[in-house]
């Protein structure tokens, strides 16, 4: 369980995180979404006690991170920025972390097996590929078998097979009742991995909802696609009803400003034949764009 309440972080003039509050619950994967510079990494650093908040607080299992007596057993974290000495082998990196809280060597071997780094674990990390570095970061996060896992952009640098691997791993952790919190700029990845979503823009909370509800909310203003053999008459009728229309390349009409029901009823009233009437499904990416665009415009107004 992660509880963030009213947290802000100011770096000189810049307010990186602005009065952010949310809760990440155990048993589900919660995604943390926002454009570059939105404050995702800063928020994670505040949760992990690396940066001190200017105001507000972040609690993990009821305590500030800095007060955890056995932190690797409570929280496993992987930051986006590399946090590994390149001159050391992966094995020794994990061993040094494990020793700080009496985690046995056996567990170091276990996590190396879990992430599939057996063959390179004794080599210097400096020679690792980005994907191998990510796997080592995940191994470090799992070292203490923590109740909460925080991962910043875990899919970065992974190949499709690696992305599938990490998705399954995270789903397994959530199924075990653990709290899983991950940031990503790959919205398609979020759509396939996360159930809950916390969306921020410019350091502020934009949405705290389920992935499904987020897409539905963003789709409410989404266009309807309609096709008729008598396109000109249909366009005229739609414009007459106050809609904005746009003719697509294939002759279909994109309608905005009317619901799909209204479009259907209008066509029936005008006795026009329809060959297609479909809601345009917005991907999470589109949903994100449309919602954050609003918030950006709102802020500028």
């Amino acid at each position: 369980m992660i509880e963030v309440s009213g947290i802000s972080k100011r770096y000189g003039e810049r307010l990186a995180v602005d009065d952010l509050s949310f809760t990440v619950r155990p048993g589900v994967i919660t995604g943390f979404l926002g454009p570059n510079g939105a404050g995702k990494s800063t928020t994670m650093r505040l949760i992990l006690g690396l940066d001190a908040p200017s105001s507000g607080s972040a609690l993990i299992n009821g305590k500030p991170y800095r007060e955890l007596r056995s932190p690797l057993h409570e929280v496993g974290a992987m930051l986006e920025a590399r946090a590994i000495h390149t001159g050391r082998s992966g094995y020794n990196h994990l061993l040094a972390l494990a020793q700080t809280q009496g985690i046995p060597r056996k567990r170091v071997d276990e996590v190396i097996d879990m992430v599939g780094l057996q063959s390179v674990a004794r080599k210097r990390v400096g020679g690792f590929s980005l994907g191998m570095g990510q796997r080592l970061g995940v191994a470090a996060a799992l070292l203490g078998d923590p109740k909460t896992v925080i991962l910043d952009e875990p899919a970065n640098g992974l190949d499709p097979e690696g992305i599938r691997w990490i998705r399954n791993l995270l789903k397994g952790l959530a199924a075990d009742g653990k709290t899983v919190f991950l940031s990503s700029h790959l919205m398609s990845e979020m759509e396939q991995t996360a159930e809950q979503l916390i969306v921020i823009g410019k350091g502020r909370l934009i949405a705290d909802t389920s992935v499904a509800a987020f897409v539905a909310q963003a789709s409410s203003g989404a266009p309807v696609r309609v096709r008729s053999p008598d396109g000109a008459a249909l366009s005229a009728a739609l414009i007459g009803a106050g809609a904005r229309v746009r003719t697509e390349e294939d002759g279909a009409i994109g309608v905005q400003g009317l619901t799909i029901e209204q479009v259907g009823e209008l066509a029936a009233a005008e006795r026009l034949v329809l060959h297609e009437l479909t809601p345009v499904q917005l991907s999470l990416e589109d949903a994100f764009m449309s919602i954050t665009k609003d918030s950006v415009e709102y802020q500028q107004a």
Partner: protein
Amino acid sequence: MSTEVTLARVTRSEWTKLWSLRSTRWSLLVACLAMAGLGPLIAVVSMAHWNQLGVGQRLTFNPLERSLGGYRLAQLAIGVLGVMVISGEYSTGMIRSSLMAVPKRLPVLWAKLLVFSGVAFVLMLITSLISFFAAQAIFTQHHVNQTLSSPHALRVVVGTVLFMSLTGVLCTALGTIIRSTAGSISAYVALMFVLPGLSDILPSSLSNAINPYLPSVAGTEVASTYAQPYTFSAWGGFALFCGYTVLAVAVAAYLLRRRDA
């Protein structure tokens, strides 16, 4: 079994970190070779030229300090490694992993100081004794050799080792404060090697007043056979050097706790 973070556990972790880096092993090897090897080398050269020395030079010949002549080079290697013990973590980002594992932060600094100064003390003590005995054996050629029970000998040997170990501590503190490797090493070199040279070009009344307070002068009193004019006593100077080191460590500890990592 308890899973709490303890100083003993963090110390074990720092022990692993120290020995698992190639750069550490090389720096320590250089320090050991310099400390153990240069003294005997200097002894061989001095004995070879003994017959060319004048009476005055023979009278002021100091077999004790000559036998430990490697300490200046060894001190440099120890200082650089002392800096890198922490600056290497900042440059690679490792510090974030270290502080996430030990969120109270200060045990990381204490453990680093403990491990590194301990390793430096033991290695430098062994190599200083090797250097001392080997050089003295060579000095027997012209019967100017000393033993550990000669006046000041034990104090100078142990004092040299203490000075070098404490230099390591000072440098780790500098590395924690400054964070960049290049910046910290520059600060160390400026403090210990450049500052004395600058003081020398001042008018002598001024430089005599300042000199005893310089860390390099105060710290090496204990490694000198005789007190120089206008300086503190051997242990008085060492106490001052300890004071500087404690001050640097206190600033380092304060900043480590307060700063964003």
